[in-house]
Protein backbone atom coordinates (compact mmCIF):
# COMPACT_ATOMS: atom_id res chain seq x y z
CA UNK A 1 0.00 0.00 0.00
CA UNK A 2 1.43 3.35 -1.01
CA UNK A 3 0.69 6.53 0.88
CA UNK A 4 -1.35 7.67 -2.14
CA UNK A 5 -3.54 4.55 -2.33
CA UNK A 6 -7.33 5.08 -2.50
CA UNK A 7 -7.56 3.95 1.14
CA UNK A 8 -4.82 6.38 2.21
CA UNK A 9 -6.64 9.22 0.41
CA UNK A 10 -9.93 8.24 2.08
CA UNK A 11 -8.14 8.37 5.42
CA UNK A 12 -6.54 11.71 4.57
CA UNK A 13 -3.00 10.66 5.54
CA UNK A 14 -0.30 13.26 5.10
CA UNK A 15 3.42 12.57 5.03
CA UNK A 16 6.54 14.32 6.24
CA UNK A 17 10.16 13.49 7.16
CA UNK A 18 11.72 13.57 10.59
CA UNK A 19 15.20 14.99 11.24
CA UNK A 20 16.72 11.62 10.36
CA UNK A 21 14.89 11.51 7.04
CA UNK A 22 12.45 8.82 8.12
CA UNK A 23 8.95 8.73 6.67
CA UNK A 24 6.28 10.00 9.09
CA UNK A 25 2.57 9.71 8.32
CA UNK A 26 0.20 12.27 9.78
CA UNK A 27 -3.54 12.03 10.48
CA UNK A 28 -5.72 14.91 11.61
CA UNK A 29 -8.31 14.29 14.32
CA UNK A 30 -11.68 14.36 12.57
CA UNK A 31 -15.14 12.98 13.32
CA UNK A 32 -14.67 10.34 10.64
CA UNK A 33 -11.68 8.85 12.55
CA UNK A 34 -13.55 8.65 15.86
CA UNK A 35 -14.68 5.58 17.76
CA UNK A 36 -15.98 6.29 21.25
CA UNK A 37 -16.81 9.99 21.57
CA UNK A 38 -13.71 12.16 21.77
CA UNK A 39 -11.25 9.39 20.91
CA UNK A 40 -9.74 7.93 17.75
CA UNK A 41 -11.17 4.59 16.59
CA UNK A 42 -8.74 1.72 17.16
CA UNK A 43 -9.29 0.76 13.53
CA UNK A 44 -8.20 4.18 12.27
CA UNK A 45 -5.00 3.93 14.34
CA UNK A 46 -4.40 0.38 13.06
CA UNK A 47 -4.96 1.48 9.45
CA UNK A 48 -2.40 4.23 9.90
CA UNK A 49 0.16 1.89 11.51
CA UNK A 50 -0.27 -0.63 8.69
CA UNK A 51 0.05 2.09 6.06
CA UNK A 52 3.30 3.46 7.48
CA UNK A 53 4.71 -0.08 7.82
CA UNK A 54 3.90 -0.80 4.16
CA UNK A 55 5.28 2.49 2.89
CA UNK A 56 8.48 2.27 4.94
CA UNK A 57 9.10 -1.27 3.70
CA UNK A 58 8.37 -0.30 0.09
CA UNK A 59 10.96 2.51 0.37
CA UNK A 60 13.56 0.12 1.75
CA UNK A 61 13.37 -2.22 -1.24
CA UNK A 62 15.78 -1.74 -4.14
CA UNK A 63 14.41 0.41 -6.94
CA UNK A 64 14.48 -2.54 -9.37
CA UNK A 65 12.85 -4.93 -6.89
CA UNK A 66 9.41 -5.93 -8.17
CA UNK A 67 8.35 -7.57 -4.88
CA UNK A 68 4.71 -7.22 -3.97
CA UNK A 69 4.11 -6.64 -0.28
CA UNK A 70 1.29 -8.58 1.36
CA UNK A 71 0.26 -8.45 5.01
CA UNK A 72 0.60 -11.73 6.94
CA UNK A 73 -0.51 -10.46 10.31
CA UNK A 74 -0.54 -7.45 12.58
CA UNK A 75 -0.75 -7.12 16.36
CA UNK A 76 -1.69 -3.71 17.67
CA UNK A 77 -1.19 -2.77 21.32
CA UNK A 78 -3.17 0.27 22.42
CA UNK A 79 -1.34 2.14 25.16
CA UNK A 80 -3.44 5.28 25.54
CA UNK A 81 -6.52 6.79 23.96
CA UNK A 82 -6.03 8.90 20.83
CA UNK A 83 -7.28 12.37 21.73
CA UNK A 84 -8.24 15.43 19.70
CA UNK A 85 -4.77 16.14 18.31
CA UNK A 86 -2.64 15.44 15.24
CA UNK A 87 -1.40 11.83 15.19
CA UNK A 88 1.94 10.83 13.69
CA UNK A 89 3.24 7.37 12.85
CA UNK A 90 6.59 5.93 11.77
CA UNK A 91 7.91 2.44 11.24
CA UNK A 92 11.16 0.58 11.88
CA UNK A 93 12.13 -2.48 9.87
CA UNK A 94 13.30 -5.05 12.40
CA UNK A 95 14.24 -7.61 9.79
CA UNK A 96 14.19 -7.50 6.01
CA UNK A 97 14.51 -11.02 4.66
CA UNK A 98 14.15 -12.40 1.18
CA UNK A 99 10.55 -13.54 1.65
CA UNK A 100 9.36 -11.99 4.90
CA UNK A 101 9.86 -8.67 6.65
CA UNK A 102 9.10 -7.81 10.27
CA UNK A 103 8.20 -4.19 10.91
CA UNK A 104 7.33 -2.30 14.08
CA UNK A 105 5.24 0.84 13.78
CA UNK A 106 4.36 3.40 16.43
CA UNK A 107 1.74 6.14 16.54
CA UNK A 108 2.03 9.14 18.84
CA UNK A 109 0.52 12.54 19.43
CA UNK A 110 2.85 14.66 21.59
CA UNK A 111 5.99 12.63 22.03
CA UNK A 112 7.23 9.55 20.13
CA UNK A 113 8.57 8.28 23.47
CA UNK A 114 4.96 8.07 24.69
CA UNK A 115 3.21 6.28 21.82
CA UNK A 116 -0.56 5.82 21.80
CA UNK A 117 -0.20 2.51 19.95
CA UNK A 118 2.48 0.08 18.79
CA UNK A 119 2.06 -2.45 15.97
CA UNK A 120 4.14 -5.49 15.13
CA UNK A 121 3.63 -6.58 11.57
CA UNK A 122 4.84 -9.51 9.46
CA UNK A 123 4.76 -8.85 5.73
CA UNK A 124 5.35 -11.19 2.83
CA UNK A 125 7.56 -10.19 -0.09
CA UNK A 126 6.26 -11.94 -3.16
CA UNK A 127 8.44 -12.04 -6.23
CA UNK A 128 7.56 -13.87 -9.43
Amino acid at each position, binding site marked *: *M*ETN*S*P*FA*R*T*MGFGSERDSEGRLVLTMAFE*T*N*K*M*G*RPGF*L*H*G*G*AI*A*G*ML*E*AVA*FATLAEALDADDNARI*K*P*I*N*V*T*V*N*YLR*GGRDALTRARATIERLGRRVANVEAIAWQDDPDNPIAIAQMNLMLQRD
Partner: protein
Amino acid sequence: MDNTLPTGEFDPVQLIRMMSGNGHNRLIGVKYNAHGSGWAELRLPYNSALVSDASTGILASGPIFTMMDMATSMSIWLKSGKFQPQATLDLRIDYLRPAEPGKDVFGRGECYHLTRSIAFVRGQAHDGNPDRPIAHVAGTYMFTAGA
Protein backbone atom coordinates in the same frame (compact mmCIF):
# COMPACT_ATOMS: atom_id res chain seq x y z
CA MET B 1 -31.10 -14.31 15.02
CA ASP B 2 -31.01 -15.20 18.69
CA ASN B 3 -34.02 -13.74 20.48
CA THR B 4 -33.13 -15.15 23.90
CA LEU B 5 -30.72 -12.29 24.50
CA PRO B 6 -31.44 -10.22 27.61
CA THR B 7 -32.35 -6.95 25.95
CA GLY B 8 -33.50 -5.19 29.09
CA GLU B 9 -30.61 -2.82 29.19
CA PHE B 10 -30.11 -2.03 25.51
CA ASP B 11 -31.36 -2.91 22.05
CA PRO B 12 -28.38 -4.52 20.28
CA VAL B 13 -29.61 -3.87 16.74
CA GLN B 14 -30.28 -0.23 17.50
CA LEU B 15 -26.93 0.17 19.28
CA ILE B 16 -25.00 -1.43 16.41
CA ARG B 17 -26.88 0.65 13.81
CA MET B 18 -26.21 3.81 15.82
CA MET B 19 -22.50 3.02 16.15
CA SER B 20 -22.07 2.09 12.50
CA GLY B 21 -23.74 5.35 11.45
CA ASN B 22 -21.16 7.50 13.22
CA GLY B 23 -17.50 8.40 13.16
CA HIS B 24 -14.94 6.08 11.61
CA ASN B 25 -17.36 3.15 11.22
CA ARG B 26 -19.47 5.40 9.00
CA LEU B 27 -16.45 6.42 6.88
CA ILE B 28 -15.61 2.75 6.31
CA GLY B 29 -19.31 1.94 5.71
CA VAL B 30 -19.70 -0.93 8.19
CA LYS B 31 -23.28 -2.27 8.43
CA TYR B 32 -25.18 -4.44 10.91
CA ASN B 33 -25.73 -7.99 9.69
CA ALA B 34 -26.68 -10.32 12.57
CA HIS B 35 -26.12 -10.98 16.25
CA GLY B 36 -26.67 -13.53 18.98
CA SER B 37 -25.75 -14.09 22.59
CA GLY B 38 -22.08 -13.11 22.77
CA TRP B 39 -21.51 -12.45 19.08
CA ALA B 40 -22.10 -9.79 16.45
CA GLU B 41 -21.71 -9.98 12.68
CA LEU B 42 -21.13 -6.92 10.53
CA ARG B 43 -20.87 -6.37 6.79
CA LEU B 44 -18.34 -4.20 4.99
CA PRO B 45 -19.77 -3.37 1.55
CA TYR B 46 -17.13 -3.37 -1.19
CA ASN B 47 -15.95 0.17 -1.83
CA SER B 48 -13.25 1.18 -4.33
CA ALA B 49 -12.33 4.10 -2.04
CA LEU B 50 -11.00 1.54 0.48
CA VAL B 51 -8.64 -0.42 -1.76
CA SER B 52 -4.90 -0.59 -1.17
CA ASP B 53 -3.96 -0.56 -4.86
CA ALA B 54 -6.28 0.73 -7.59
CA SER B 55 -4.76 -1.72 -10.12
CA THR B 56 -5.80 -4.83 -8.15
CA GLY B 57 -8.99 -3.55 -6.47
CA ILE B 58 -8.11 -5.50 -3.33
CA LEU B 59 -9.46 -3.98 -0.10
CA ALA B 60 -6.85 -2.54 2.24
CA SER B 61 -6.43 -4.38 5.51
CA GLY B 62 -7.26 -1.27 7.57
CA PRO B 63 -11.03 -1.32 6.90
CA ILE B 64 -11.17 -5.04 7.76
CA PHE B 65 -9.32 -4.28 11.00
CA THR B 66 -11.86 -1.53 11.77
CA MET B 67 -14.82 -3.85 11.15
CA MET B 68 -13.34 -6.60 13.32
CA ASP B 69 -12.58 -4.09 16.09
CA MET B 70 -16.21 -3.03 16.02
CA ALA B 71 -17.61 -6.58 15.76
CA THR B 72 -15.52 -7.83 18.68
CA SER B 73 -16.42 -4.70 20.72
CA MET B 74 -20.12 -5.34 20.16
CA SER B 75 -19.78 -9.01 21.10
CA ILE B 76 -18.72 -8.01 24.62
CA TRP B 77 -21.93 -6.07 25.28
CA LEU B 78 -23.92 -8.94 23.80
CA LYS B 79 -22.14 -11.36 26.14
CA SER B 80 -22.62 -9.30 29.28
CA GLY B 81 -26.10 -8.08 28.30
CA LYS B 82 -25.22 -4.53 29.20
CA PHE B 83 -23.46 -1.64 27.61
CA GLN B 84 -20.33 -0.51 29.42
CA PRO B 85 -17.45 1.66 28.23
CA GLN B 86 -14.31 -0.18 27.20
CA ALA B 87 -11.02 0.34 25.39
CA THR B 88 -9.10 -2.03 23.11
CA LEU B 89 -5.95 -3.33 24.80
CA ASP B 90 -4.70 -5.31 21.86
CA LEU B 91 -6.00 -6.82 18.67
CA ARG B 92 -4.18 -9.24 16.38
CA ILE B 93 -5.28 -10.08 12.86
CA ASP B 94 -4.00 -12.90 10.68
CA TYR B 95 -4.69 -12.14 7.04
CA LEU B 96 -5.24 -15.61 5.55
CA ARG B 97 -5.86 -14.40 2.02
CA PRO B 98 -7.00 -11.19 0.31
CA ALA B 99 -10.73 -10.47 -0.02
CA GLU B 100 -11.93 -10.93 -3.59
CA PRO B 101 -12.34 -7.55 -5.34
CA GLY B 102 -15.99 -6.54 -5.63
CA LYS B 103 -17.20 -8.76 -2.80
CA ASP B 104 -18.63 -7.60 0.51
CA VAL B 105 -16.73 -8.77 3.57
CA PHE B 106 -18.51 -10.17 6.62
CA GLY B 107 -16.93 -10.02 10.05
CA ARG B 108 -18.09 -11.91 13.11
CA GLY B 109 -16.75 -11.12 16.55
CA GLU B 110 -17.27 -13.33 19.59
CA CYS B 111 -16.63 -12.66 23.25
CA TYR B 112 -15.58 -16.01 24.70
CA HIS B 113 -14.59 -14.96 28.21
CA LEU B 114 -15.34 -12.08 30.55
CA THR B 115 -13.75 -11.08 33.83
CA ARG B 116 -14.62 -8.04 35.93
CA SER B 117 -12.07 -5.89 34.10
CA ILE B 118 -11.10 -7.72 30.89
CA ALA B 119 -12.99 -9.17 27.91
CA PHE B 120 -11.38 -11.82 25.68
CA VAL B 121 -12.52 -11.87 22.06
CA ARG B 122 -11.92 -13.67 18.79
CA GLY B 123 -13.43 -13.52 15.36
CA GLN B 124 -13.31 -14.33 11.67
CA ALA B 125 -13.95 -12.49 8.43
CA HIS B 126 -15.02 -14.00 5.10
CA ASP B 127 -16.15 -12.74 1.71
CA GLY B 128 -19.19 -14.93 1.15
CA ASN B 129 -18.26 -18.40 2.35
CA PRO B 130 -17.77 -18.70 6.12
CA ASP B 131 -15.84 -21.94 5.54
CA ARG B 132 -13.16 -19.97 3.67
CA PRO B 133 -12.23 -17.17 6.08
CA ILE B 134 -10.03 -14.32 4.89
CA ALA B 135 -8.93 -13.30 8.39
CA HIS B 136 -8.80 -14.47 12.00
CA VAL B 137 -8.61 -12.08 14.93
CA ALA B 138 -7.92 -12.33 18.66
CA GLY B 139 -7.79 -9.58 21.23
CA THR B 140 -8.58 -8.18 24.64
CA TYR B 141 -10.54 -5.16 25.87
CA MET B 142 -10.47 -3.41 29.21
CA PHE B 143 -13.53 -1.94 30.90
CA THR B 144 -12.83 1.71 31.53
CA ALA B 145 -15.63 2.70 33.94
CA GLY B 146 -14.08 3.61 37.26
CA ALA B 147 -10.58 3.44 35.76
